[in-house]
């Protein structure tokens, strides 16, 4: 059970939080699915510095439905000519009540060729609390032009306090125009799918 939960959160933390804030006035809708959970997350960014949104979750494992009212804030960003570095604060309050919420940090640094990211997330639940940490590196095998199909080959590694074991697995990320798709595979969870559209 712990292993499966860990995989869920690993993909949620790295997939959904990969682009946690849009441009000013922009909206993003994301869908996530694996053998454990389906999730749909919509967020709106009044400013490039923060986003507010709703994440609706169908938890297959615990057989329950709940939602998170989410808030993400850009703590720090450094733009250079060849790179961008971001540090975000993320939080969510569950529809299950005030005793159910999460908060954490998410950071990344990327050039057109390389990507490095991390995530720390504490989930407070009435029954059980979780602490997750995750790290990600990626490389773009080719540099596409604006409007082209872009591809990233990534490696993710994470640990959840529920099972206290590291798991590492490959992920492919594709994006073209306003659409982004991530596919990850692990022998236990089979295919994980994450789709994002920004408008």
């Amino acid at each position: 059970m712990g292993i499966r939960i860990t995989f869920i959160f690993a993909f949620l933390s790295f997939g959904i939080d990969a682009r946690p804030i849009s441009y000013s006035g922009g909206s993003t809708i994301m869908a996530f699915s694996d053998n454990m959970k389906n999730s749909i997350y919509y967020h709106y960014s009044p400013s490039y510095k923060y986003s507010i949104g709703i994440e609706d979750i169908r938890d297959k494992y615990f057989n329950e439905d709940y939602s998170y009212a989410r808030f993400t804030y850009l703590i720090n960003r450094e733009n250079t000519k060849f790179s961008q570095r971001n540090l975000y604060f993320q939080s969510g309050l569950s529809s299950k009540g005030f005793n159910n919420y999460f908060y954490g940090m998410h950071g990344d640094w990327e050039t057109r060729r390389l990507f490095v990211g991390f995530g720390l997330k504490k989930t407070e639940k009435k029954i059980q609390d979780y602490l997750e940490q995750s790290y990600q590196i990626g490389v773009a095998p080719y540099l596409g032009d604006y409007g082209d199909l872009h591809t990233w080959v990534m490696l993710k590694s994470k640990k959840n306090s529920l099972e206290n074991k590291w798991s590492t697995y490959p992920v492919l990320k594709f994006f073209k125009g306003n659409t982004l798709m991530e596919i990850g595979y692990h022998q236990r969870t089979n295919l994980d799918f994450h789709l994002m559209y920004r408008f």
Partner: protein
Amino acid sequence: MRKILLLIIFTSITWAENPHDHMTYFNEDHLHEQLVDGKKLKVDPIRFNKFVMGVTDSQIAVVNVKGMVCDFCARGIEKTFTKDPNVKKIDVDLSSGKVLIAYNKGQEIKFDDIKEKILINGLNAIDMTIINL
């Protein structure tokens, strides 16, 4: 020899007759030489020619942007500028970190306005060069 000298003189005169801010965009060397701020422009001439194809009576703002490392992140720039009725065309060049914006000729181009539009997308415009077509 005399013919060569005459050719050089003729070329020099033709070159000198061009206004300082009016760039001949078919030659990369020209792009590098005739800059308002004196900096190297480094615009891909093929890309630039493709961009200005069919664009007439216009001026092109070439904006140098920091942090534009990702196509998905730069999408907002295109959306923001295409809402501006004075903008005829826009192109994002990820490889050089530049945004090309075609405005109507005679339209006043304010760098502060462009800077603000880039900033609301979370990126930073650091300088701009205007090329008259």
